């Protein structure tokens, strides 16, 4: 496409003019550890959360936060009277504390879920499992992210 000097200048001018405004509005949105706690309490209620049983496989160093493979597995026999009802995954510093809720049942056979997630910053990822006896088990993993996701500008 032939570009005239006039088109180039008006385009360049438009970008700089617009570029000055977002600096004020583009403060990085971030969930806080308090929001993480609130999100967890929304799921768990007042119940006690114990550490253990849950395993969270996620790379400790992530180059691109836009797609991070993640696998959550829970040590459970998955029988009718002892199985995992749900798995909830949270983060500390994305704009929102929730990542996903996954609902299983006794016919799942294996308590394992895998997906790909976004991480906006170096942060903690928390996975919580609810068992059929309504006890909650959690694990937390620290992830270092070098290229953040979620809040970058759209081209």
């Amino acid at each position: 496409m032939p570009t005239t000097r006039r088109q180039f200048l008006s385009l360049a001018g438009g970008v700089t003019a617009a570029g000055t405004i977002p600096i004020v509005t583009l403060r990085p949105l971030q969930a806080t550890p308090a929001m993480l706690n609130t999100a967890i309490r929304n799921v768990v209620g007042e119940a006690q959360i114990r550490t253990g049983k849950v395993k969270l496989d996620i790379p400790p160093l992530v180059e691109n936060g836009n797609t991070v493979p993640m696998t959550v597995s829970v040590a459970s026999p998955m029988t009718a009277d002892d199985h995992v009802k749900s798995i909830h995954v949270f983060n500390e510093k994305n704009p929102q504390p929730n990542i996903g809720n996954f609902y299983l049942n006794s016919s799942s056979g294996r308590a394992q879920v895998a997906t790909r997630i976004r991480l906006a910053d170096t942060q903690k990822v928390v996975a919580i499992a609810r068992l059929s006896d309504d006890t909650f088990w959690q694990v937390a993993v620290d992830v270092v992210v070098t290229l953040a996701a979620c809040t970058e500008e759209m081209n």
Partner: protein
Amino acid sequence: MAALINVPAKARRGDVIEIRTLTSHVMETGFRHTVDGKLVPRDIITSFTCRYNGAEIFRADLFPAIAANPYLSFFTVARESGRFEFEWVGDNGYSSTASAPITVE
């Protein structure tokens, strides 16, 4: 609405099988801005359901922190021959379905 489904075609009764699904969707977070400062509205898949011969075996609530083109892997016990049905529901009336057969011996 292209979806890739990976279900074993055959299984023995009682086997634990893995089901993998991938669907194409931008999963726009609603937190990004265009170059001129406008907020890009949220457009994500909010829920996924898998049914095995009509009975729900797996369900997921998805949030903007799920990467574009959502991939999900989960397990179930092969009980009987039949069909798996998959449904994705999202913002702006988005809805997409897929299904896969299985033979259980």
